[in-house]
């Protein structure tokens, strides 16, 4: 059976899932869905139950990936690594809510699947526990615990607690795959009594670059390498040989919006990192900007949203970090503009930017800032 929660796209033969959202109620669209050929209506709990039953029947090994940064990249890397040996289903894109994950299971899990890799998001406390209660993961990966979501969840401590939900959801013989470079992850892991596999750059992790055969990775940035190491750790746990793991990792390709390098016309290169932005991912992107050759380095930074109390401080920090890397800073949005006067960095408003041959331009900002439009404009030679 197939399910769909969107009455606009529902097709003949699908079940309509009626959900109550923030400012809409799916129940109002039941008639429309049925008119379009939906075979019946499911409440959300019934959907979850369907997903549970299907998982129990097919019984794939479930791997949950969560973290404030790098979930999607890590999930894709884990998928790539495990696909060498197993038939793997992964959740699509960043559909990482309980609803998204359950729909993926109901619609796409087939009897031949041996592994399910699920990205588990966290927009509110309890969300991870809810998703895990459906999929019952055996392996949990925590990539990072950062400042993202501060506005929604409050303090960093609350985020830590929310992320700990994923470890609390593991069975006794479950395995936690953890980023040893993130102090918050290290703290969260203290509550977990089961087996832990650490990955990262620090000496005390079991899975480090120097424990793997040499390989080339086509992704930019230290964070991408960290994500690849997470996938390598899962690969080892799942019994894949190191040679196969690194072969898969070298096949990873960057995705649009995530440190995605684009050669524009007129010898201008754009690093499209417009998918999202938080203090740590901005620092990571700046490091990439610094490391690549360029005649001039330019950062076009949009506001970072959802930072709550840390907002002002975080923006000022980013601008002063950028001042050490860039030739020109282009603030987009009220928060970046307010922060920019704080430091001795050259800056111009976006409409006064004029690009030249040899420029390397990093474009980044929170999802809500729609910075990808600026990438498009740059590629159309608008600046």
């Amino acid at each position: 059976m197939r399910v769909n929660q969107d009455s606009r796209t529902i097709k003949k033969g699908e079940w309509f899932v009626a959900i109550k959202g923030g400012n809409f109620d799916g129940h109002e669209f039941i008639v429309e869905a049925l008119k379009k050929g939906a075979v019946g209506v499911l409440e959300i709990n019934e959907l979850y139950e369907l997903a549970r039953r299907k998982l129990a029947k097919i019984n794939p090994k479930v791997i949950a990936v969560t973290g404030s940064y790098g979930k999607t990249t890590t999930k894709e890397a884990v998928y790539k690594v495990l696909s060498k040996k197993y038939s793997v289903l992964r959740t699509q894109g960043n559909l990482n809510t309980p609803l998204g994950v359950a729909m993926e299971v109901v619609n796409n899990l087939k009897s031949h699947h041996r592994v399910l890799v699920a990205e588990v998001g966290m927009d509110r406390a309890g969300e991870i526990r809810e998703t895990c209660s459906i999929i019952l993961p055996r392996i949990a990966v925590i990539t990072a615990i950062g400042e993202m979501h501060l506005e929604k969840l409050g303090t960093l401590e609350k985020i830590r607690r929310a992320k700990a939900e994923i470890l609390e959801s593991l069975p006794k013989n479950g395995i936690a795959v953890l980023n040893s470079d993130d102090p918050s992850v290290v703290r969260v892991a203290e509550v977990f009594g089961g087996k832990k596999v650490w990955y990262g750059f620090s000496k005390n992790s079991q899975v480090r670059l120097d424990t793997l055969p040499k390989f080339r990775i086509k992704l930019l940035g230290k964070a991408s390498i960290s994500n690849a190491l997470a996938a390598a750790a899962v690969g080892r746990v799942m019994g894949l040989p190191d040679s196969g793991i690194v072969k898969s990792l070298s096949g990873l390709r960057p995705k649009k919006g995530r440190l995605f390098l684009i050669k524009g016309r007129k010898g201008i290169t754009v690093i499209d990192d417009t998918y999202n932005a938080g203090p740590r991912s901005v620092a990571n992107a700046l490091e990439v900007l610094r490391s690549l050759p360029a005649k001039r380095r330019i950062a076009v930074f949009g506001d970072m949203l959802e930072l709550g109390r840390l907002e002002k401080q975080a923006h000022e920090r980013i601008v002063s970090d950028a001042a050490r890397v860039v030739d020109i800073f282009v603030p987009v949005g009220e928060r970046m503009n307010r922060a920019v006067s704080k430091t001795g960095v050259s800056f111009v408003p976006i409409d006064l930017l004029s690009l030249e041959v040899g420029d390397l331009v990093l474009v980044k900002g929170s999802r809500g800032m729609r910075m990808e439009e600026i990438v498009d404009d740059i590629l159309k030679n608008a600046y």
Partner: protein
Amino acid sequence: MKKKIAVLMGGPSPEYEVSLQSGENVIRNLDRKNFDVSGIVINKDGKFSIPPKSIRKFDLAFIAMHGPFGEDGTIQAILDEIGVAYTGSEATASRLGMDKIASKNLFIKEGIPTPDFRVVESAYGIKDAAESFGLPLMVKPSNQGSSVGVNVVRTPAEFSKAFAEAARFGPVIAEKFVQGKEIQAGILGKNSLPLIEIRPQNEFFDYEAKYTPGLSEEITPAPLDEKTTKRIQQLALDAFQILGGRHFGRVDLFLTEEGTVLVSEINTIPGLTKNSLFPKEAAATGITAPELFERIIDLALNDAR
């Protein structure tokens, strides 16, 4: 239509850091409803972060730079060449203002009283000056602002060190030490702002005290009778006009115990940081920082028309 303002800051000068702070203060206080603001840092090697020619795209360059390069006519000549209007004095007046020898000679020629001085080429020159003017003496480089490289010498043992410190920056002058009050007069447009009296904790008002709150005591307005105030303000305006200054500036003066007023020097781009005296002088007449910078911009845009 919003005016496009490029705030220039930094530059190859001992006052690089202060210039960044001045730039920051200007940028922070410009109302974005009226202006499209850009910040252009010129690095310590004099390299622009954008091609200098592209400054032409702006309606005005706000020069928030102090000392050599930014205040001595260099950047002004570059901007003249590019063909963009800028705030503050033009190249010639800037050059004169920064060159203490030239400006003091001009004051003497035009009858503006200034402390006696002579150009010295070695520690021996200081000895000669001491014989003429007595001790203590002010020893300073002729081409710096903000008390950079300035020393008060009171014994012959200090001559060599004081000369060496000043000579690092260029030609050196020895100036008669004036016993009296240090007064500063801010100039905005055609007017003198309320006077400030400086009572330094240190011997005199040095670079450190100038930019560290609490190291000197400033009294605004200076506690002087109206007649003396007017006299000092008029002399400050005269000196500024004779130099050829425009838009804004700051004249440093002495009021001796006998009541004589002497012009010490003219800063064509006084500090614009939030701790600087020039914005404080303006504040004393009720001109807030945003208003002050906007007035300077208006003066410059009017001249450009």
